[in-house]
């Protein structure tokens, strides 16, 4: 058995000796080519001018390959940064509106609530004849200078806006100036100008307008008389002061 195997080996060695030589030569050549190619690449990489020329030549392909990946990466990056920004804004808002307590407020241990500083605060309600702009009555938490003139100007502004932007039955509803807002609630022959500071909260508006409606219902006959003919303003002003002072106290307690 051993003798038969040895004979096969001898035969194979004789038959494939030439192939082996050729294969060895090919391998050798390939190695030389590969080494040359690597050396060439090495030299290109070490030479910035050559390298940039190579990159420039392959620019479209690079963009084709990297573009979508980069786009996805950029989008992901932006998304992540926006989320971080949102979180930061949210945290700032929470910090700003959280109850700030200054234990050593000038040594007095006082505190204040920033949230309440932004809350709507009723300042004045003027009840005005829609046509003439004459004041029918007023409630003043903080007296404004010459409410008669202010009532006239509100009526002029209201009339101006409604004529310029003629929208049929539409009425001017709000004048917004800095921290002050003037809510206008119009009825048939008169309207209320409700002056307040702070943010225009829907809940505040709802409560105030409900009270204004209640007052109008309660004094309907007097209001109609006041709007169309002679009227003793002091009577209605006293009633407005009484009615809306209660509302003001209620709002302050909230």
């Amino acid at each position, binding site marked *: 058995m051993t003798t038969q195997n040895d004979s096969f080996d001898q035969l194979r060695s004789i038959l494939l000796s030439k192939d082996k030589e050729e294969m060895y030569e090919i391998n050798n050549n390939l190695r030389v080519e590969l080494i040359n190619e690597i050396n060439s690449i090495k030299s290109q990489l070490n030479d910035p001018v050559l390298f940039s020329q190579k990159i420039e030549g392959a620019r479209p392909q690079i963009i084709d390959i990297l573009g979508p990946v980069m786009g996805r990466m950029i989008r992901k990056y932006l998304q992540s940064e926006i989320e971080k920004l949102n979180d930061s804004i949210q945290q700032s808002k929470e910090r700003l509106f959280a109850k700030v307590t200054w234990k050593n407020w000038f040594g007095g241990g006082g505190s204040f609530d920033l949230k309440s500083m932004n809350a709507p605060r009723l300042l004045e309600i003027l009840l005005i*004849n829609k*046509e*003439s*702009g*004459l*004041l*029918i009555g007023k409630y003043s938490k903080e007296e404004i*200078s*010459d409410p*008669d*003139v202010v009532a*006239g*100007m509100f009526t*002029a*502004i209201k*009339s*101006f806006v409604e*004529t*310029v932007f003629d929208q049929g039955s539409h009425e001017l509803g709000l004048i917004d100036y800095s921290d002050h807002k003037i809510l206008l609630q119009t009825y048939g022959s008169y309207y209320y100008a409700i002056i307040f500071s702070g943010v225009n909260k829907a809940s505040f508006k709802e409560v105030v307008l409900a009270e204004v409606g209640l007052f109008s219902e309660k004094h309907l006959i007097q209001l109609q008389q*006041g709007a169309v*003919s*002679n*009227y*003793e*303003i*002091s*009577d209605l002003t006293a009633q407005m002061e009484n009615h809306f002072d209660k509302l003001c106290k209620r709002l302050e307690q909230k």
Partner: protein
Amino acid sequence: MQEIRAKVVLIGSIGVGKTSVVERFVHRKFSNNYLSTIGVRVDSAEVKLADAKVKLLIWDLAGELYLSEQYNQYLNGSAGAILIYDITRPDTYDEIQSVAKAISKEYPALSLVILANKSDLRDDPQYRDGISDDHKFDYMTSAKTGEKVEMAFQKIAQNILENTSHVKTIER
């Protein structure tokens, strides 16, 4: 003493001196810019009469809005109107005459006072020949010198007091 309050409008063409007349009579509260933006500026003035005090809410209407829809809106609810023309410009007299006719028809209860303004120019040789003697007016006023301006406002206050259907009574 009776106290009343009423809306009075000032009417006249551009440059007849409406705003100057008001400024002569009232303490200005709002800027003249309102005249160019919304076409009106409201001021107040108190007129003391023999047996009453009248608070006038004076609506100075911009001449640019003359007879526009906005102008008519501003006239609503007025108890009186002061119509002003410039004695050196006869066309401004013709204009207020047509306005006076229209107002009398539309608002018959309105008290009207016509002022011939710029009386300080009546002896100026430059204008003397152009000033007509046929014009009918209540007072010849001068916003520059103040001549008869107060008298004109007292007249309209008196007229309104006599016709109080458009005013509000104040009892403080």
